[in-house]
């Protein structure tokens, strides 16, 4: 019993030893490739499909995974370790496998306004030196930036030009001009960015900076009016305010082949309105007519007083047109004068129908 127990114990010890070794030693035909940086292990061994199909493959898969993981952990133990907060930590080296991109490649930015213009005109970028010789300070200074050469805001003496207002502060004027240039540059840069990212910039008049024109204000008012949850349906109007009928940019026209009858009717109505708007009394015509009448009366009077001479004088004075009218009026006038006698002015206006 003892002997077999000793043998048993030895055998058991040996088995345990093998077990232990087996737990960390894995036999593989081909060695695995490791990338400790990504904690990656490549197993290129052939897979026996018969083993896989035997017990639905679960046990086979589990043992395969266990073996490969064991090998990976062995590899990790080979790395240099350090102790952080009483925990042994392995320092992973840089990875050697190149991974594909996580996000899509960045699209090329659309060219800025200047770049478009330069391309159009064929302007090349010229390399400029960073330092410029400043004659005044007799040293090399930056072309642009902090303490640059030829900075006109830093001059201590500015001559007031002859055409300028003597009470104007020239230093403040230069500072203000610089601020405006900076602001404009920033604004253009933001516009370039907005164009690149296709962000919608508020239209003219909606982000007011300076004096607005009437049309800009009107546009801003219209946009503000429809910027409610009900798209401006319940917004009150001022007593004399007109709603702008063209909402947005798209114009709406009548259909090309619409109802011809209604189109005709609309045009005829329009003509009627235009006729009614035209003044019934043409002022110049009325004035001319009145003048003609007065001339005729004076002609008649002078004819009565001067007789033949007066008549002749009349004809030559007013020319053919008036003369004709005068002649016609005169003929009738003579008859009337004969009839009405001293009343003279008793000619009725309906006689002169004129030449229509």
């Amino acid at each position, binding site marked *: 019993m003892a002997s077999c127990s000793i043998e048993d114990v030895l055998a058991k010890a040996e088995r345990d030893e093998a077990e232990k070794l087996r737990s960390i030693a894995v036999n593989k035909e081909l060695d695995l490739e490791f990338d400790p940086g990504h904690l990656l292990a490549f197993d290129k061994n052939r897979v026996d499909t018969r083993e896989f199909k035997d017990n639905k493959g679960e046990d086979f898969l589990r043992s395969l995974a266990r073996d490969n993981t064991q090998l990976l952990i062995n590899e990790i133990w080979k790395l240099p370790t350090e102790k952080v907060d009483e925990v042994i930590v392995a320092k992973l080296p840089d990875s050697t496998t190149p991974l594909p991109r996580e996000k899509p490649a960045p699209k090329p930015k659309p060219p800025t306004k200047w770049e478009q213009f330069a391309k159009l005109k064929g302007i090349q970028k010229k390399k400029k030196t960073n330092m410029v010789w400043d004659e005044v300070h007799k040293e090399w200074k930056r072309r642009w930036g902090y303490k640059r050469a030829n900075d006109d805001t830093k001059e201590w003496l500015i001559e007031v030009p002859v055409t300028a207002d003597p009470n104007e502060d020239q230093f403040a004027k230069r500072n203000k001009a610089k601020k405006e240039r900076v602001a404009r540059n920033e604004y253009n840069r933001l516009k370039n960015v907005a164009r690149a990212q296709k962000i919608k910039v508020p239209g003219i008049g909606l982000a007011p900076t300076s004096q607005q024109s009437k049309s800009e204000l009107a546009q801003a008012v219209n946009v503000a009016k429809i910027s409610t949850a009900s798209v401006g349906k319940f917004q009150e109007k001022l007593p004399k305010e007109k709603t702008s009928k063209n909402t947005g940019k798209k114009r709406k026209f009548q259909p*090309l082949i619409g109802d*011809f009858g209604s189109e005709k009717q609309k045009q005829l109505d329009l003509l009627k309105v*235009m006729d009614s708007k035209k003044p019934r009394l043409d002022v110049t015509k009325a004035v001319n007519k009145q003048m003609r009448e007065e001339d005729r009366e004076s002609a008649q009077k002078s004819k009565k007083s001067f007789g033949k001479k007066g008549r002749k004088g009349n004809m030559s004075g007013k020319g053919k*047109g008036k003369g004709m009218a005068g002649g016609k009026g005169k003929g009738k006038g003579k008859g009337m004068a004969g009839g009405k006698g001293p009343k003279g002015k008793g000619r009725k206006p309906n006689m002169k129908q004129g030449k229509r």
Partner: protein
Amino acid sequence: MRPLTDEETKTMFEKLSKYIGENIKLLIDRPDGTYCFRLHNDRVYYMSEKILKLATNISRDKLVSVGTCFGKVTKTQKFRLHITALDFLAPYAKFKVWVKPGSEQSFLYGNHIMKSGLGRITENTSQYQGVVVYSMSDVPLGFGVAAKTTQECRRVDPMSIVVFHQADIGEYIRSEDTLT
């Protein structure tokens, strides 16, 4: 191609009424068919509905002209009457001017009409009235604007302008490519 908007129709009628007065009704309401105005490439065309329906089969960029071109709408929304409208203005004209044979050619070359070239003029023409110009044989030559009233025309000296030139049939040769 599209129909005219209200404003465009109004400006066009105002221009036409300067030459033919209230006879525009006869252009709109015709006994021999429905005719209409359509706008294409800023030009106003006058055509029958038959032609309009046929024209819808042609694409916009390939369509050059439909019916008769009356004129064009300028960039500032004003209407400019072209010589191609003469066939419709001449029969309905209210105020006419006849030109002597000697200065017919001068008018057809684009010059204004002077008193020396004036043959006849309708009575009671007011100043700046739209007139249609005829030759002595009653052939319509073009249209213009009267520079002086009929009365003044009688008194004024022979070298002064009586009718401002606006369009003449010589333009068919001179501005052939811009007329459509």
